[in-house]
């Protein structure tokens, strides 16, 4: 399958930028407005799902391979764990918000470790959901070729 028609390809290549921007906004402003790491990560993954539906799987694999996305997944999980351990080192308790006294309320850079945790979780959720859909589509492809 080499993707859909020219109309779908053109429109999805415009819309994907907006979807990625909206996902990054949801992640970065998670401590000020509704949203957060999980929702933003799913939005980032869904932008790649749109590309996969419109252009086919091979095109997406050139852009973001499964090895790279599994590395991003591990980096996100590791960063979230490290934030917790740093809280233990500097604050004495696991998951202490040790940066909160250096920040001002209602600013973009505020709330201490919460935006950092949001970014880590967004990276983790986005990469892992992309990986699930990618491996499912590989599996579907293989079973279709087996049947033929």
């Amino acid at each position, binding site marked *: 399958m080499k993707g859909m028609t020219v109309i779908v390809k053109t429109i999805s290549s415009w819309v994907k930028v907006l979807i990625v921007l909206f996902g990054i906004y*949801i992640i970065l402003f*998670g*401590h*000020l*407005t*509704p*949203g*957060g*790491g*999980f*929702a933003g990560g*799913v*939005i980032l*993954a*869904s932008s790649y*799902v749109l590309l996969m*539906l419109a252009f086919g799987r091979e095109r997406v694999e050139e852009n973001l391979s*499964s090895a790279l996305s*599994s590395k991003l*997944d591990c980096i996100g*999980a590791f960063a*979230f*764990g490290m934030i*917790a351990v740093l809280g233990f080192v500097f604050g004495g308790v*696991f*998951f202490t*918000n040790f940066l*909160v006294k250096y*920040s001002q*309320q*209602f600013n973009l850079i*505020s*709330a*201490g*470790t*919460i935006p950092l*945790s*949001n970014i880590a*979780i967004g990276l*983790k*959720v986005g990469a*892992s*959901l992309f*990986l*699930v*859909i990618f*491996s*499912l*589509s*590989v*599996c*579907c492809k*293989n079973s*279709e070729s087996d049947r033929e």
Partner: protein
Amino acid sequence: MAIFYILLLFILIAAIVAVETKNLLSAVICVGAIGFGGSLMFVFLRAPDIAITQIVVEVLGLILLIRATIARDLTFISGDREFFGTVVSVVIVFIIFLAGVRVFETLPEFGKPIFAENPDTASQTYIEKGLEETGAANLVTSVILDYRAYDTLGEATVLFTSIIGATVILRKKSRKLLEDPDV
């Protein structure tokens, strides 16, 4: 208030159609309608965090399910239901219904916080001290990433483990190894 009853009726009808229809694709679409109705209810209940998460996950799941059902040849369900299974599920649903009636009698009136009378409960503490202790304007985020961060760590661990399982089972190499073991 009336909007909730309309949405509940819509969700109920969609659920019944999803169970009863013979076409797999229309069942999947009805499941999607249930999810979108639920996210609309969250919006009207003023819980935008959950509404965003619900609608985003619903879109992704709907795309996956539709792709899965279109790729398969088997789009029609056939076969009758077993008598024993039907009886057991009806009895279990009735027991859950009785327990639910007992639980809903103890709940406070709609729109009232559960712990409004006692000032020392956890939710009152979050609302009073959440902003100054965590600095986050969004109290939901301050709860899930500061007060209850262990919960989020457990959720992330569950997701991580399930992804490892999915990629190990669905990878390409294992299929090749199964097909010719000499490689």
